[in-house]
């Protein structure tokens, strides 16, 4: 089984991620590229890069599970599974005591409860609005003329927090413009934005509750300020994967392996 290879392809709204594993669940390669306007093409490119890094050929991959909003566009996939199931399986694989997964993705956020096998028990997802998602931070970073790394750097983690709406990205952007006009320090605004996302996530967590350890996935898990605030709000330490962005693809690869 170790000589068999499996791939997970997560076509998200912001990035396309591919993970290749062997039958013993060892990760052989991970690739993250921007999705752009063509999810199908992004999946092909990311898959080819991952194959190159793992020094494997396309034929050596026995099963590919596609996930993410663009899962239906992955022509070479042998199966597809929602990102909700994949994040549950991926997070459980990395942190076996995980009972709750919080995934803050590019266009939506989810809270997922999993059992001791990583199987989904319940989930909730944010509504149509982009508030509380990676897109929210991206929009705000542009407005603040910061890149995403700067938005999460400890320098921008301030004790003071500017009040920002947690209900709508568009309104929140207007609020940020007003705050900038009033010369509110950028770090206070950043802190307010992070708090706004945390409040949004908290309401989702409250709706289904917390079980076991909590693992945070998705690129936003790299935002140190947000992680700190979320831990404070939950009153719990969070498991942060080394590569939080590829947990969905890892879960997809695990599912490909399980189903094979």
């Amino acid at each position, binding site marked *: 089984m170790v000589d068999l290879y499996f791939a997970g392809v997560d076509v998200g709204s912001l990035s396309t991620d591919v993970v290749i594993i062997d039958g013993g669940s060892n990760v052989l390669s991970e690739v993250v590229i921007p999705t752009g306007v063509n999810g199908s093409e992004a999946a092909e490119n990311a898959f080819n890069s991952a194959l190159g890094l793992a020094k494997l050929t396309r034929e050596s991959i026995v099963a590919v599970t596609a996930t993410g*909003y663009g899962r239906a566009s992955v022509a070479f996939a042998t199966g597809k599974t*929602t990102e909700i*199931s994949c994040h549950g399986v991926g997070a459980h694989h990395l942190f076996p005591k995980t009972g709750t997964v919080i995934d803050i993705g590019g266009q*939506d956020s989810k809270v997922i409860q999993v059992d001791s096998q990583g199987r*989904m*028990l319940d989930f909730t*997802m944010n*509504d*149509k609005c982009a508030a509380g998602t990676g897109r929210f931070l991206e929009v705000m970073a542009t407005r603040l003329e910061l890149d995403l790394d700067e938005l999460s750097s400890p320098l921008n983690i301030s004790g003071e927090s500017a009040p920002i709406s947690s209900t709508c990205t568009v309104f929140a952007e207007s609020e940020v413009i007003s705050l900038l006009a009033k010369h509110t320090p950028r770090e206070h605004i950043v802190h307010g934005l992070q708090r706004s996302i945390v409040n949004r996530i908290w309401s989702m967590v409250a709706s*289904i509750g917390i079980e076991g350890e909590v693992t945070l996935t998705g690129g936003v898990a790299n935002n140190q300020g947000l992680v700190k605030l979320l831990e404070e709000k939950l009153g719990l330490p969070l498991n942060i994967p080394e590569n939080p962005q590829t947990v969905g693809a890892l879960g997809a690869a695990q599912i490909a392996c399980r189903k094979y």
Partner: protein
Amino acid sequence: MMIPNRSEYLKSLAQSGQKIMGVLPALYPRELLWAFDIHTAEIWDPPGEILHANAHLQTTICPIVKRSLEFILKEPEIINAGYLFPHTCDSLQNLGTQVKDLIGVNVPVYTFYNPKGSFNNTTTKYYREILQNFQTTLETVYEPLNPEKLLSACVLGHKIDSRLMAIQQARMTNHLSLDNSAYFELMRAQEYLLPLDYLNLLGKIDILEQAIEPARARLMVSGILPPSPEVLKFLDELGVSVVADDLLAVSRRIPKFPMDAPLLPLDYLTDRFFILPPCSTRAGDLEERLHHIDKLMQASQAQGILFDIVKFCEPELFDHRLLVKTLRERNIPVLTLETELQAYLSGQDKTRIEAFTELLFDMVSA
């Protein structure tokens, strides 16, 4: 199964001189109207863009009310005998008042204030009185009611109820070979077909002697209207069968258990009203509703519940939170979708439905 197109069917009826009353959701004494030879065309979710209705209504009013008003403002010719506004919720009651007193239409507007609360001496007496009053109102517009016609209408309604109960039972026990889309198309045809046409249609549905292979996963739906055709089609594609429902437009309008054939029409209609399943729009008891849902889930072997909630539906949202909380405590998988009665399925809702299906499949295989 050939079901006539709603719009074409009603147009053709109106052209033939049939009296047609536009009826807003949900509970009304249909048999009384049939006895006056008035056909009831129910208005739940007329398609199209909401433009003019927004000028009369707050943004937080549900899409059923908005779509209904948009339809009414167009003054469609098929509605030639007036509109009936049952008191299903405050928004519909207000709409009735607006249409009658403020907007004005060229046909009569009637209201029917269903009692809230459960069966007791006061509510039954009240219901019987409003039936009588409605009859009197119609007699002033048309002609004195022929009691034989009312009895015949009740007998017809009784036959429809009995057949619907049998079909629902067959659905729950795998004795019906209709997919989700076809099943709910059949259920919704009662909103506009003449009662005899509907009864004939129901009569053509095969109830199988042998149970068919159950679907990979079985689901119950709750809410106001059946999920949109797009959702039903998607569930069909995923291999999920909707085997039971707690929908206002469907099973909450069918008596909980069989009734004797009608003898005294107004008594029969009163009895029928009070043995309908528990419902948020009648301020029904939540425990009773939970018990009813439990029974349906057991009878149908449904593994989870999909709540398809109409945005801003006040009565339903009051119950929804507590229902979900209790069902989750009982480890029953629950998915809630919020609908604005749009004719498409968003990517996010697709993901929600698919993830919920994966959860049910995992449960089945575990």
